[in-house]
């Protein structure tokens, strides 16, 4: 009998605990991996890369600001636009600037976690294309975009720069 009472008491104490299981980072990002033409990892050793986009109010927003020394990077994805337009600018040490535009098409799905967590959208990437000033090609590796940003969604092949 004492054990049963102990069990009931323990259950009540544990039941009094509550938790809100919101994702740690309540944002949905796409991950880009830089690759060389032979499939090995590319790195922005001395060059810097910036990415901007045009907002709904026609102002420019910087998504990535002159990163260098990286092989992968994250870029946000829009909630509901059917196609995002991203402007990639690569600046080399000689002061040359190369600008490309990337267009990525996607399907958007509302995602609900809890009334206590911010609403968000998950996505399925359907197509990607770009101009080719410094970008050689860009391909979709993982079309599913959600909170699990553990693998590269895009492989980005830049032209030889050195």
């Amino acid at each position: 009998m004492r054990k049963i009472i102990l069990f009931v008491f323990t259950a009540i104490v544990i039941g009094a605990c509550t938790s809100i299981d919101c994702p740690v980072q309540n944002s949905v990002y796409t991950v880009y991996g830089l690759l060389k033409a032979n499939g090995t990892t590319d790195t922005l050793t001395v060059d810097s890369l910036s990415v901007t986009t045009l907002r709904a109010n026609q102002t420019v927003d910087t998504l990535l600001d002159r990163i260098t020394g990286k092989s992968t990077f994250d870029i946000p994805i829009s909630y509901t636009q059917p196609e995002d337009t991203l402007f990639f600018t690569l600046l080399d040490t000689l002061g040359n600037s190369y600008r490309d535009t990337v267009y990525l098409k996607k399907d958007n799905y509302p995602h609900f976690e809890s009334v206590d967590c911010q609403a968000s959208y998950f996505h399925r990437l359907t197509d990607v294309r770009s101009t080719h000033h410094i970008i050689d090609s860009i391909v979709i590796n993982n079309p599913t975009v959600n909170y699990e940003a553990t693998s590269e969604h895009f492989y980005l092949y830049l032209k030889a720069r050195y």
Partner: protein
Amino acid sequence: MKQRPNISTSISRLVISLVLLVVASSAHAQLKLFRMEKDSIPLFRGFAVSFDLVGPAMLMLSDHGEYEGALRLNLHDQWFPIVEIGIGKANRENDEVTGITYKTTAPYFRIGADLNLMKNKHAANRLYGGLRYAFTSYKVDILRNGLKDPVWLTTSDFGVEGMKCSMHWFEVVFGIDAKIFGPLHLGWNVRYKRRIHHKEGDIGETWYVPGFGVNDKDQIAANFNVIIDI
């Protein structure tokens, strides 16, 4: 990356361990417990109806809760087959932090049995443990109007209406009944609920499930019952 605390896993392990401890340490007593007492008291001892006060209180004090009633058979003051029926409701409108509206109202059903754990089965007061199988089928509205994209600054109306869902779960129940006067009893019980199967829409897992409570792998809840012997 999404990270979830392992509170529910810990609770499951603790509950299972405690149940095993109780069962293992009193195996002999358990056999006695399940054996029907041989005396002059008839097998069928009547019905009892009950209704819960915690669910309506939660509905008054928060944005979700239940109205729940039960019909229980009394077999020799030892076994109590029971059917519980309720209506679960959640209505959170335009949450002040997230702006989300969540609405559902649906019935739920439980069936199971309680066992009187008292040494003297025919005493006026009872201590009991029991099991339940439970089911609900429900529709949910999840809405968030004017959701603003923080980067692109577009706005969209987010959500679904009438999303069809269902859940099956079982419950382990421990409780007491105390006779007040005449046919009136008051009692409380604590329930450990474990989700067996659930079907939900494409938008994600629902938040409140009628009869189960806030959606998770498991849940602990309590009832306070007014019981009338018939």
